[in-house]
C-alpha cells in the first residue's frame, strides 16, 4: 500500500473511532480544517510510526508541522525531510 493510502486509511479509521467527520481528503486540504483534533493527530502520528516505521516529527531537530495534507504525505514519503 502506498504511503498516501496508508495515511488516508488511518485518518478515516481514527475519525470513525473518535466520532469525527472528515473533510474531503484533497492535497491542498488544510490539516487544521480536516476534522481531526490534536488528539486525533497525536494518535495518527503514533499509528503511522507503527505501520510506516517512522515518526518524522519527533525525530526532527526543530519543531515543524506541515500545513496541508499534501505536505504531510510528502514528509512521510521522504522519510523525514
Amino acid at each position, binding site marked *: 500500500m502506498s504511503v498516501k493510502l496508508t495515511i488516508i486509511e488511518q485518518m478515516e479509521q481514527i475519525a470513525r*473511532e*473518535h466520532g469525527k467527520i472528515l473533510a474531503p481528503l484533497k492535497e491542498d486540504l488544510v490539516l487544521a480544517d480536516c476534522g481531526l483534533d*490534536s*488528539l486525533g*493527530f*497525536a*494518535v495518527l*502520528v*503514533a*499509528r503511522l*510510526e*507503527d505501520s510506516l516505521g517512522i*515518526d518524522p*516529527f*519527533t525525530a*526532527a531537530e526543530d*519543531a515543524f*508541522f506541515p500545513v496541508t495534507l499534501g505536505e504531510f504525505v510528502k514528509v512521510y514519503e521522504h522519510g523525514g525531510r
Partner: protein
Amino acid sequence: MNMAGVEAPSLRHSVANLKAPGFLWDRAASARFTDLDRGTSLGPGISLAGRLADLAGRSVLLATTCQLTTALALIELDAIARRLVILPPDVEAEHLGAVIAAAEVDAAVIDDGTAAAPGLALPVRVGCAPSIVPMDEALPARVATEWLLMTSGTTGAPKLVVHDLSALTAAITAPSPADGAAIWGTFYDIRRYGGLQIFLRAVLGGACLVLSSAGEPVGDHLARLAQHGVTHLSGTPSQWRRALISPAIRGIAPRYVRLSGEIADQAILDGLRAAFPRATIGHAYASTEAGVAFDVNDGLAGFPAGYVGAIRDGVEMKVVDGSLRIRSSRTASRYAGGEPKLADADGFVDTGDIVERRGDRYYFAGRNGGIINIGGLKVHPEEIEAVINRHPQVRMSLVRRKQSPITGSIVVAEIVLKSDQQRTGARQIELKDDILKLCREALPRHKVPAAISFVPAINVAATGKLLRRQG
C-alpha cells in the same frame, strides 16, 4: 498493640514456644527454624571470629544473598542487634555506602554468595549458613531492635524505613486451630515489606514456608510449591499473572490466595477464582512506610467506602487530594538518615496511591507520581491496564507514555496474551481492534491507547511490580 512497659516476645522466643517443628524451604537447602532456640546458624566470621556476642548491640547489615540465611539471621538477631538492616537483592552497589552511613552499620552478616564489595569492609563480618548447630554461648542481653527496610521505589537511592517488630506484626492474628497446619509460600522476596509480612506470618503462626529464589523459573517454583503442598500463597498481581500462564499452576491447590503490592483488578481476581474455585482470595493493601492497612476478601476489586473515615483494627484512613493517607500502630516510626518526615503532624502517612470513589467502593487509580499528561489531561496508566486486562484473551498489560509532537504525550499499550500463538496469528489485527473497542467503550478518548503491541512478556521488577520506565 503493646501496652507501655510490656515487652513483646523476641522472634527467637516466639519460635521457641511453637509446638510443632517449622521448616523453611529454599531452592537448594532447608532449615528447621524451630531448632534455633537451642542452636545457631551464625558461624565463624570471615575477618573476625564473630558470633552472637559480636553482633550484640550493633547495627547489622544483612548482606546475605539467599533468603534462607536471611530468615535465620532475622530470627536469631531480633532483640540482640540494635538494628537489623535488611538488604534486598536488587539494591545497586553504588547505593550501599549511603545505606551503611544512614543506618550507622557497624557489622554485616554474610553468606557464601555475598560478593566482596569494598563497601562491606566493616569491623565485624559474620557468616551465616543454612545449617543449625548447637549453641555453646549464652544469649547476650536483650535490646530493643529496630528493623530497617528499604522502600521499593524503582529510581534513585532507596529510603530506609524504621520499624519495630510489634509494628511489623500488628496485622498478624493468631491462626485458628480449625485452619490446620499451614504451608505458606510467597512469590515475594522476604527482604521486602510484602515478603517479610509472609515470613513473619508463617514463623509466628508455627507454619512452614516455601521461599522463592532469585532467577528461578516460575514453573520450577510452582513445582516446589506443589511438592511441599502449599496451602497459603501470596504474590503481587503481576507475579500471579505470570504464574497463571504456567501449566505448573495446575499442580497447586492453595486454600488461601493473597495479593498485595500492586492494584488487584477485577480480571486477576476473577482469573484466580477460576483457577482456585474453593480458595479464599484476598487482596491486602500495605506499604513499607504505612504498614498493612486492610484486607479485602469479598472477591471484588477496590475496597468498601466505609473503610475511609472509620477506625478499623486500629487503622485510620482518610483521602486528601485523592491520595490515601493512613495512621496506625503498624506504621513505620521514621526514615533513617536525613530523610524528610514520614508522617504528617497528625501521624498520617501519605501513601501516594490515588483512589477514586465509585458508588459504595473506592478503587485504586494509580500512583501520584505516575500520572501521564496528555495535552493537559491527566491519565493513570493503571486505570487503562485494568480495562485492557478485562479482555478475555489478555493475560497482562503495561501502559506507558510515548512522546508525541502534538500533545506532548500519548499512551500506548504492551499486551501479553493468554495464548502466545495469537500474538503473531492471523487474528491479531482483529484482536487489536477488539481490545481498542473495549477501551473506547470504557474510557474517555484521551485514555484509549494510540497503539497496541502484542509482546511475549512484560518485565516484572525484583519487587514483583511491573517495571514502569520513566520517559
